[in-house]
C-alpha cells in the first residue's frame, strides 16, 4: 500500500497526491501517516480509492468527498465529511461538532460519540453514530438519515425538514417542530440496511424514529404580530 507521510509532504502535498490518482489506477489503497491533527486532510477526493489515516485528524477531514472510502484510526475534529457527496467516511474514535454538516450523500460512520450539531443541515447523507450525539444534532436537517445508537442531547432535530432520525437511547429534548413518529416496516428495513452498511451490531427494533411535524413550512397567522 503506498504511504503518504503528512509530516514530510504537508497537507497540500498529501491532498495533491490523492487528487492526482487517475480513475482505474492500479493502487486503490493509500495510507496517510502522521496526520498530527492537521486540517482538511483528504478533502475533495473524487476517485474510488480507499484511504486509511493512522492517527487523529483536525477539522474538515474528508470534506466534499466523492466515491472514496476514508477510514480514520483516531479522533476527528470539527466538520468531518462536511459536504460529502458520495463514498464513505469512517471514524474509529469520536468526532467533534458539526459532523457531516451539509453533506449530500454517502455514508458517514462514527464508531464513538459525535459532539454537538451532528448532521447539521444534512442534505441526503446517511450518518450512523455508534455512541451518543451532542446538542442540536440534526439541526435543519433536510434529507438523509441520522442513526444514533446511544443517546441524543438537547434540542434534537430542531427545525428539521425531511431527514429521518433513529435513536436507540434517551433523547434529552426535542427541538422545535421535531416529533417522535411511528416506526413502520419500511423504516425498520431501512435502519437494518444502514446498520448493516455501517457494520454496527444493533437491533433495529430497539430504536425510535423522529422527524418533522411540518408545522414550520407555512406561515401561521397567529404569528402575524411578530412582523
Amino acid at each position: 500500500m503506498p504511504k503518504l507521510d503528512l509530516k514530510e509532504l504537508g497537507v497540500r502535498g498529501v491532498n495533491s497526491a490523492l487528487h492526482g490518482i487517475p480513475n482505474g489506477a492500479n493502487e486503490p489503497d493509500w495510507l496517510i501517516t502522521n496526520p498530527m491533527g492537521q486540517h482538511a486532510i483528504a478533502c475533495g477526493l473524487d476517485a474510488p480509492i480507499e484511504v486509511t489515516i493512522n492517527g487523529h485528524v483536525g477539522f474538515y477531514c474528508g470534506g466534499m468527498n466523492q466515491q472514496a472510502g476514508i477510514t480514520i484510526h483516531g479522533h476527528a475534529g470539527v466538520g468531518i465529511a462536511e459536504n460529502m457527496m458520495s463514498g464513505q467516511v469512517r471514524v474509529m474514535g469520536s468526532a467533534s461538532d458539526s459532523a457531516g454538516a451539509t453533506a449530500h450523500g454517502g455514508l458517514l460512520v462514527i464508531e464513538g460519540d459525535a459532539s454537538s450539531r451532528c448532521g447539521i443541515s444534512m442534505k441526503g447523507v446517511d450518518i450512523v453514530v455508534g455512541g451518543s450525539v451532542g446538542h442540536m444534532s440534526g439541526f435543519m436537517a433536510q434529507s438523509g438519515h441520522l442513526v444514533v445508537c446511544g443517546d441524543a442531547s438537547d434540542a434534537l432535530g430542531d427545525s428539521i425538514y425531511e431527514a429521518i432520525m433513529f435513536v436507540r437511547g434517551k433523547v434529552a429534548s426535542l427541538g422545535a417542530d421535531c416529533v417522535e413518529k411511528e416506526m413502520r416496516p419500511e423504516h425498520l428495513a431501512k435502519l437494518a440496511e444502514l446498520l448493516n452498511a455501517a457494520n454496527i451490531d444493533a437491533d433495529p427494533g430497539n430504536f425510535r424514529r423522529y422527524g418533522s411535524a411540518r408545522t414550520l413550512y407555512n406561515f401561521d397567522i397567529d404569528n402575524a404580530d411578530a412582523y
Partner: protein
Amino acid sequence: MRCWRDASILGMHAGGMTMCGIVGLYLKDPTLQASLGELFAPMLIEMTDRGPDSAGFAIYRDPVSEHQTKFTLASDDPDTDWKALDTDLARALICQARLDIQGDHAVLVTDADAFAAQAWLAESRPRIRVVGSGRSIEIFKQTGLPKDVVEQFKLTSAHGSHAIGHTRMATESAVTTAGSHPFATGLDLCLVHNGSLSNHNHLRRKLERDGIVFQTENDTEVAAGFMTLNLRRGLSLHAALEAGLVELDGFYTFCVGTANGFAVVRDPFGCKHAVLAETGEWVAMATEYRAIAHLPGADTARIWEPEPHKIYTWGSA
C-alpha cells in the same frame, strides 16, 4: 416559520476558525516537570494561526513558603521601574525581597504582607502592573507572535507542574500587553478565554461598584473580575464557575489555572472549539487537537470534546 438560512448556520461553525487559541497542560507524572516548557511551548506556537496578535502563559513552579508571596510584575518602562525595586521595598516595609527580571516582566518574592506590598508598589512604582500573584504562579504576556513571546520569556527551558496559555486575535479591545491573556483572578488563579462576551460592559459597571478595579476595556478581564469577586466572597472555584455560566453572556471556552491544576468550561451552546486529551502522564486541553499532537503518547491518548455547560477539573482545582 424558519428564520435561519444555511449561510448563517455555516458561518456559525466556520467562524470558529478565528479568534484566539487556548492551551493547557497538567503533568500527572512528576518526572516530566523538568520538561514542562519543552512540551508546552510548541502547544502555544501551534496556535499562532488562531492568535498572532499577542500571547501569554501562566506557569506554576517553585512554590514559595507560606509566609511569602510571589508577584509577577510588568512595566512599560522596565529600566526605571526595576531599578532598586527590591532594596527600596525591603527598606520601606522592613522585609526581604528578591527580584528576578525577565525583560519587561519581573518576578518579585517577598515576605512582606501581600496587601502592604501591593500598596507600596502602587504608591512608589505607579506604572507597574501586577499581572499575577500567589505562591507558585508566574504570568508572562506580550504583544507579538507566540514564538517571540516564547523566546523572550525562555518558556522552552522552563520547568513546572502545569501551565496554561493563550494566543490572541484581538476582537473586543486593543492589542496591548495589558489586554493579553492570562488574566489573574486571585491568588495562584488565572484565566484564559476563547470567544467573546456580549454583556461585559454591563457586568464591568456592576463589578466596579463592588470594588473590582479594571486595567483595560477587555471582555476577558471582566470574566476574570467576576471570578475574583466570587472567590473573594468565599465561593469555591467550582461554584464561581457555575455562577459564571449563569451571568456571563456570550460564547466562550475558559481554561482556569489553579495552584494544583486547571479547570475547563464551555458556554451552554458550545460555540467555541475545545478538545481534551488524557494519558497516564498528562492532561492537555487545546482549542484544536493539533496543539496536542506532538505530546508523548498523544497518538494513544483518550481524546474527547468537553461537553458544554459542564465544569471539568484536574488536580485539586
